[in-house]
């Protein structure tokens, strides 16, 4: 204990205590899930209603504007949303905004293999992966103006001619954009598609929520799914519990732990400063 007593220790605790506590509250529930109940926020309900309105044959532009690192945070929302689109019979075009994300589509399809089989989805006829086609804003703008002139093959180099992409000439032929983002090309997609009138919904990482909410207000985004928590709520709403709901135990306890440390720090700060002021006052007398 430091010289200032217990209150000073509370006010200036070592950061390693936070690391240790966070490690314990995260690893514990992941190894042995508790299944804490969760509440579903209004924004997630709105998001579910919007993506569930996508109908059979609608062309969905499924854009993964994330690195692999960010994918871990929004994975639950991505899988749950893709499941909804598959069950609704939409035609899905996947594009990614980062070289790291090129491996993500195959992981999504691996996770949803059962749904793809049950709904008789065939690659090329019902879904297609274009790979990394958003290196910059000019590429997104070109795609919106002249889809065929910009993209002519999928991520493995197979020509897209003869697939349902033949119907897509400009931004007008995309029925819905479902974007999953850590930033990257989302603003460009919004500028060249959503602002012209293509319906767009977004699932973003936690730090992007405050700035993204403004686009929801203005109607540019039809709905916003908030980070991993939104993904978990969507899993709950769609009745397919998976990684998102599993992570909610650690998510809950992590938040409570943080609040606990804030309270301890402030209590220590308050008592220690009061003690110092009181001590000085007594010395003066």
């Amino acid at each position, binding site marked *: 204990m430091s010289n200032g007593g217990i209150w000073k220790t509370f006010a200036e*605790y070592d*950061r390693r205590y*936070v*690391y240790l506590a*966070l*490690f314990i509250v*995260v690893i514990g529930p992941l190894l042995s899930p508790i299944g*804490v*109940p*969760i*509440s579903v*926020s*209004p924004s997630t309900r709105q998001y579910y209603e919007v993506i569930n309105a996508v109908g059979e044959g609608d062309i969905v532009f499924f854009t993964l504007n994330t*690195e*692999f*690192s*960010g994918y*871990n*945070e929004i994975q639950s929302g991505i899988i749950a949303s893709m499941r909804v689109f598959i069950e609704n019979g939409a035609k899905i075009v996947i594009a990614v905004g980062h070289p*790291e994300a*090129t*491996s993500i589509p*195959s992981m999504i399809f691996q996770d949803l293999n059962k749904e793809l089989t049950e709904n008789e989805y065939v690659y090329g006829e019902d879904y297609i992966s274009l790979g990394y086609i958003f*290196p*910059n804003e*000019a*590429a997104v*703008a*070109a795609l919106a*103006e*002249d889809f065929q*002139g*910009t993209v002519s093959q999928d*991520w*493995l180099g197979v020509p897209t001619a003869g697939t349902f992409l033949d119907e897509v000439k400009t931004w007008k032929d995309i029925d819905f954009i479902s974007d999953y983002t850590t930033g990257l090309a989302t603003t460009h997609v919004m500028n060249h598609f959503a602002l012209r009138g293509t319906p767009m919904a977004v699932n973003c990482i936690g730090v992007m929520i*405050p*700035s993204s*909410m*403004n686009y929801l*207000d203005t109607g540019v985004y039809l709905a916003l799914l908030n980070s991993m*928590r939104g993904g*978990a*709520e969507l899993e709950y709403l769609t009745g397919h519990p998976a990684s998102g709901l599993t992570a*909610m135990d650690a*998510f*809950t306890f*992590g*938040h*409570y*732990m*943080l*609040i606990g*440390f*804030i309270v301890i*720090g*402030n209590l220590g*700060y*308050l008592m220690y400063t009061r003690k110092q002021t009181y001590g000085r006052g007594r010395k003066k007398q």
Partner: protein
Amino acid sequence: MSEIIKTKEFQLSIMLISFLIVFIPYFLDIPALDAVSTKLITIAALVNVFTIALAVSSLVKRNMNFIQRKTRGWYFKAYMLITIVLMLVFSMFGLETGPYHWVMFAVVNPLSSVNYGILAFYMASTSARAFKARNTKAALLLITGVIVLLYQAPLTGTVFPGIEPVALYLTDTFGKAAGKMFLISITVGALVFGVRVLLGNEPSVLGIGGKE
């Protein structure tokens, strides 16, 4: 001729014409101009892709120089160049299977995830220690932050449903107001910068800064 091309006026004129070709079709429906605009955007996208090759070329030149001179940490630069070449070679054997696929799944993805995961510890530690009620304003921020944090924990909403309207009020009013302020500031700044570029007040954009 080459002297004319190098002049600031000529380069600015090209930029202004390109800008107008792309800008006007957003507001006026002129099919011929729209077609030219579309073609120009596609050309710009392709040229942009070639800048990646240019970037790799510069990277190799620069780092080879460091390696030859054996500057501090030269082996990291050598390692980087080796991985660039290896990934390029691996990608030629296919993307879905083979060495490229293995490197992505066994090396890049786990490292990327770990990098991201570590941030949680720093963010938790920093926010826990920085959130101190040192004065009235900080106390208000602290109370607001704790309410929103409590609401963000999924369990809280089921135990205390009353927290939802309070947290939503805070994010929908103060949170959004601050967010809008930043977005509007950035947008206005970008507009001003664009106008300054078109007026020739930002010659550095054309790479001719300091030569005037």
